[in-house]
């Protein structure tokens, strides 16, 4: 396979809070190849958004990237090495803050956020914001940039772009605003666009239109995407490969068809089972019991074992790293679950344990703030 466009290795991002260290992203690795849409799925609190901000080095204090490597087109976005005194320090070839700002963000890697109202400035016109962005990043003069901006608005399906150019964000509907942000992201023809739940706040009909448009534009510009979402249906629709996250870790990684039809991790299957289906009537939903534990104090062993219907004694002791489970000639498929033979830690002999999934209805409390008066 060709050299990946973006390669993330063992990325760790932590937040240092008064209550302790929150390990929001705890050693994730994945690649994005050219022209590919890679999904990043998980429930709220899984660390999806922290992972994407880390890629752009946008994590703010008290958060910090504490380990791992991020390579983008042969350049090092993040990398550490051990200094003479034994302390970790950034490597020399790591891009400086200024290079990140001027070369990478927006030009090479663009990001689309979930809430389009918060990403657009309410006191400037939509066209003006788009024009300014193009002017600065593509070294065009104001008139050319305006022309380009109108073309981009038409490209993303805004009706009557010439007259809407002078309107303000509040005059646009939610779907239209998201289209403007997509136009903005595409305007500099970046190699990679990170889309952080861009359609979550939209109606299904609008979501459908936007996903269709993204697929078309992706073919036209050959842009790669990292698509962050909690919605398995969106994943099924547009992603080529998928990473499933649980509590700061990627627990399964596969091509989209394999993920749905040859699911290897109990969390992924539980997630798929818990969804009501639009295409058939399901008599009873099978929810995942309990809630996701806090990343400040993750369970020992496999992090999912406290909610896993297939948990055994060994799951409490062994922390599984994702391993390659595909056979020769198949597409790569990794999963972090010891029930597979590749782990060989004695899962089959281990006795099953009592978990929330096996032991009844009581819903667990979130770890913090649960004290009674």
């Amino acid at each position, binding site marked *: 396979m060709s050299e990946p466009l973006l390669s993330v290795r063992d990325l760790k991002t932590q937040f240092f809070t008064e209550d302790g260290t929150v390990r929001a992203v705890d050693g994730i690795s994945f690649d994005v190849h050219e022209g590919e849409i890679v999904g990043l799925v998980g429930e709220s609190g899984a660390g999806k958004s922290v992972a994407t901000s880390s890629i752009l080095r946008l994590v703010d204090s008290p958060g910090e990237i504490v380990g791992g490597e991020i390579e983008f087109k042969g350049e090092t976005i993040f990398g550490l090495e051990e200094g003479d005194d034994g302390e970790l320090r950034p490597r020399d070839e790591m891009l400086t803050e200024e290079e990140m700002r001027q070369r990478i963000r927006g030009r090479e890697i663009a990001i689309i956020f979930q809430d389009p109202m918060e990403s657009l400035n309410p006191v400037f016109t939509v066209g003006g914001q788009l024009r300014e962005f193009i002017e600065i990043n593509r070294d065009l003069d104001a008139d050319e940039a305006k022309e380009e901006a109108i073309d981009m608005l038409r490209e993303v399906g805004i009706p009557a772009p010439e007259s809407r150019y002078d309107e303000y964000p509040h005059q646009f509907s939610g779907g239209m605003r998201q289209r403007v942000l997509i136009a903005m992201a595409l305007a500099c023809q970046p190699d990679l666009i990170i889309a952080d739940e861009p359609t979550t706040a939209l109606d*299904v009909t609008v979501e459908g239109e936007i996903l269709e448009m993204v697929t078309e534009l992706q073919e036209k510009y050959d842009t790669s995407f990292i698509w962050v979402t909690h919605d398995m249906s969106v994943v099924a629709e547009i992603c080529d490969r998928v990473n499933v996250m649980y509590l700061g870790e990627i627990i399964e990684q596969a091509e989209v068809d394999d993920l749905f039809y040859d699911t290897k991790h109990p969390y992924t299957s539980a997630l798929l089972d818990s969804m009501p289906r*639009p295409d058939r009537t399901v008599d009873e939903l099978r929810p995942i019991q309990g809630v996701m534990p806090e990343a400040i104090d993750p369970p020992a062993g496999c992090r999912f074992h406290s909610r896993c219907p297939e948990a055994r004694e060994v799951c409490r002791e062994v922390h599984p790293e994702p391993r390659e489970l595909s056979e020769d000639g198949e597409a790569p498929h990794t999963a972090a679950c010891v029930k597979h033979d590749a782990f060989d830690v004695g899962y089959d002999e281990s006795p099953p344990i009592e978990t929330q999934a096996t032991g009844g209805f009581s819903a667990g409390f979130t770890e913090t703030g649960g004290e009674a*008066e």
Partner: protein
Amino acid sequence: MTEVGPPESDPEALLQVRDLCKYFDNESGLLAGVQLDDEFPYVSRSTSDVRAVDGVSFDIKEGETLGLVGESGCGKSTLARTVLRLLEPTSGSVYFQGEDLAELSGEPLRRMRKNMQMIFQDPQSSLDPRMKVGPIVEEPMKAHDMLDEEGREARAKELLEKVGLDPQHYNRYPHAFSGGQRQRVNLARALSVNPDFIVCDEPVSALDVSIQAQVLNTMEELQEEFDLTYLFIAHDLSVIRHISDRVAVMYLGNVVELADKEELFENPKHPYTRALLDAIPVPDPRSGGRTALLSGDVPSPIDPPSGCRFRTRCPEVIQPDEYDMTEDAWRNVVEFQRAVERRAFEETDPDALRSRYFDDAVPSGDAGTLLDEALGHIERDEFEDAERILVERFADQSVCATTTPAYEVPSDLTDGRHYSACHLRRDEALASAVDEPAVDDAARPGAGATEADD
């Protein structure tokens, strides 16, 4: 015959909503709507109402769940609040256990409210952060003078257990609970006064899927145990399909289709319902994705389209009687007209436009002449004139624009009734009305379809 909504009326139903309307003033204040003119009388006042709910009728039988689905802004929440009389209806009536809520006021209304409760979308903001969970659950009982203090506490604890929480949590504050658990507290609070009817306004849409399933299952268990009737609002069709017995689809303040769940999902008879169903993503990469997407935006409820409100986006608008185009040619005309309205192209050359929009079928006769005229205007950059011709002579002439549809059609899959507000169903409705002439007046020609009032 004036009934425009679903022509149902079951005197046994727990809740009967008839022709319910709720309009909001678009502007408020002393000088709202005041305009200055050049001529006498110089000052005029015109108010434009937002027609959030416009002539909705339906029944909810005891013990059933009616799902209400529609895009954001279609009036679902306004309808729910108006049904509970949290908002004053503009007109129409809501019969709950035989009494018209729209007529009640003061103490009788307050007493009635004991039987109707509501659960809101945001579990965070619907619980007072400074009250403990126990007193939150007791509050409605206090308001309705139920039990003494000890009895209330005992009941609150019992209810907490029923909704899947630990009764020991009586003394905790809402912030100590996760979103799903807060929604359970909301459920317990709604149940505390032993209501018959609960309106659930998007109760699970703020929750993660895995938690969503837990709460939905609990709601179903409680329904069975306490014999509850739900009006369940959601924008997520998968959730609606899971929980409802019957489903009403709303578009721009109207109910466009109402039928039993299986019937509606497997045999939809309104183009909007079909479009909505086609737009749901299926969690299956082999499903082939969504098809036939709707184009355009929902029109403004201040000035909704005449006749069928969906006609401006409908893929199946009916050809006006005066023309005799082929189906393909008519579709091309519709597509072209919408493109002109949206200013979707810059091209002004008639030949280029012809090859782009009328490649496979060109309208002939009168329609062809009108089209030439419109293309001529576009060539001279007179988009507005072209738009006027296309809209007035084509779109506004369709039966979809001149009459408001309302038909009861036969159900193919279930015994329940099936209401569809679409003129394409006219023949079907007529045929079934001939079979059973006594059953419903509303499906007779001219009766079900009332003239558009604007």
